[in-house]
């Protein structure tokens, strides 16, 4: 494990991604304590304050400090994105691995259905599900999990099939090992690696999706300091206070970039034979 960490940090993407995510994690954990102001504190004198000494990233239409809201908002978006991705991956992995294990007719039937479900683009599916559930971050997270499940099913199935073809799995079968043992001891550790890479990259997408849902009114609700929501609210005041939109936009993008980079770094680090 420590060996993996070293290899990860030696790749450019891994190092930068890890650095970014370290900052994001710190903000998630300690953000509210470090914030200079209460994110919900109204301050009519600070309305539309330009970024300056008093409000480092400016003030919004109700005079709330943008920086404080950013720091607090991380706690909504990032854990929700992580949870949604993990849930979606779990559900998808179950279906995908089962399909790979069953093989033959069942495999084809399951995969055709998964493909059919994916005819509903991610955002669309998430929108539909979120609109049915009660408004709020929880509903949005659940919706994202549902939207991710089919894609992860495809990925895990494909990886599982590749692993199943390897000769060490055949050796285990020839030893008379039980199916459960083969799946758990032989296949799973080898399936986990590519899936972990995929999951990391998906979290980036989940961050963006969660912010998008909040932007469209179906995720976090006001007055929560969620980044997507901040963009949606700030949009009306684009002309006089563009920083209301730019600050949270950059936060979202940076977090997504961090996860993307980490995923790329993990992919390189997990390949032991890539020594060029």
């Amino acid at each position, binding site marked *: 494990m420590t060996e993996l960490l070293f290899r990860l940090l030696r790749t450019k993407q891994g190092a930068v991604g890890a650095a970014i995510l370290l900052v994001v994690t710190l903000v998630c954990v300690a953000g509210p304590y470090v914030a200079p102001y209460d994110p919900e504190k109204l301050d009519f004198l600070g309305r539309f304050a330009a970024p300056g000494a008093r409000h480092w990233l400016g003030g919004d239409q109700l005079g709330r400090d943008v920086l404080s809201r950013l720091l607090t908002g991380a706690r909504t978006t990032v854990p929700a994105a992580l949870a949604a991705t993990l849930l979606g991956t779990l559900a998808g992995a179950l279906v995908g691995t089962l399909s790979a294990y069953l093989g033959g007719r069942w495999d084809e039937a399951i995969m*055709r*259905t998964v*493909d*059919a*479900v*994916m*005819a*509903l*683009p*991610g*955002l*669309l*599916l998430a*929108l*539909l*599900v979120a*609109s*049915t559930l009660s408004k709020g971050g929880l509903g949005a997270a659940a919706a994202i999990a549902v939207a991710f499940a089919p894609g992860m099913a495809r990925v895990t199935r494909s990886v599982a099939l590749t692993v199943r073809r390897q000769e060490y799995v055949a050796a285990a079968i020839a030893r008379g090992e039980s199916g459960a043992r083969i799946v758990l001891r032989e296949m799973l550790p080898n399936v986990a690696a590519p899936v972990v890479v995929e999951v990391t990259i998906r979290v*980036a997408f989940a961050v*963006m*999706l969660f*912010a*998008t849902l909040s*932007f*469209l*009114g*179906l995720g976090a609700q006001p007055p929560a300091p969620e980044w*997507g929501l901040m*963009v*949606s609210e700030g*949009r009306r005041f*684009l*002309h006089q206070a*563009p920083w209301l*939109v*730019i600050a949270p*936009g950059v936060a*979202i*993008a940076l977090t*997504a*970039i961090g996860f*993307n*980079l980490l995923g790329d770094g993990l992919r390189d680090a997990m390949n032991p034979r890539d020594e060029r």
Partner: protein
Amino acid sequence: MSARWLLRRALLVVYTLLVVSLLVFGITQVLPADAAVTLLGENATPAALAAVRTRLGLNDPVWWQYWHWLSAVLVGDFGTSMRTGQAVGPVMLVALSRSLLLAACSITLMLVVAVPLGIVAALRRGRLADVLAGLVSYLGVSVPEFVTATVVLVVFADQLHWLPATGYVPLTENFGSGLFHLIAPVLTISLVLVAHVSRMVRSETVDVLASDYVRAAWLKGLPPRVVLLRHVLRNALLPVVTIVALDVGYLLGGIIVVEEIFAVPGIGRQLLVAIEARDLPAMQAGALIMAATYAVANFLADLAYAGLDRRIRYD
């Protein structure tokens, strides 16, 4: 291409649409414990709730509701909007045509930019052009459309005044103005698409450049131009059709957001309005039509790819 292969593919499209319809109907009408409450809110009177339930047929068994809805859809009747009282179908289809226009322009712009970008990045792999292209792609996939759209608005409409902020002018009314108003939304959507597709084109081209047959072409003494055009591009561009088809999914997602921000009255916007107003028939119709568009686009891409790559026909 064999008739059997075509039949298989067509049946799959039908199956896909069936599953999608089940999913859409299930999520919107079956999943909520009481769709009437979802539609009218918690505080609605029992009488109003009962009226809605009768009107939408919510008291009937689920499978009957589904059949009722599906059979109507199959003859083109998408029901009446709960918000406007108008027939949903015609409104949605008109909105679809506008979205398709947006999509077509975006895809065209994307192809013109992304394909050469990807190829050049592959040819100059590891050098400055490649690294820069990679950076731009990274940004493209890490910034959500609503942020890009808003930035485009801020920069081009608000600060520079080069483009109109929002609004839609039908092309039939005023072609020039219509196109002008389309520039900002098309630009926004294309940005994300270019980021995706150029990376995939680059990756394909890199693989082809490293292949044995390209090496053989070099060693046969063929000049660089011939190797590039006849051997590299032919093989690298083959999957572009598939890549674009895959990206139609991202496109449809992006269209929802972009139409909202730039106030383009396309099907994405209609869907959002329907969701906001809890207009069940309109929601169902919008979702179904969008998914059907994706499924048909993929089918056409399959056909096109099979037409180009002879190996596939022997499936």
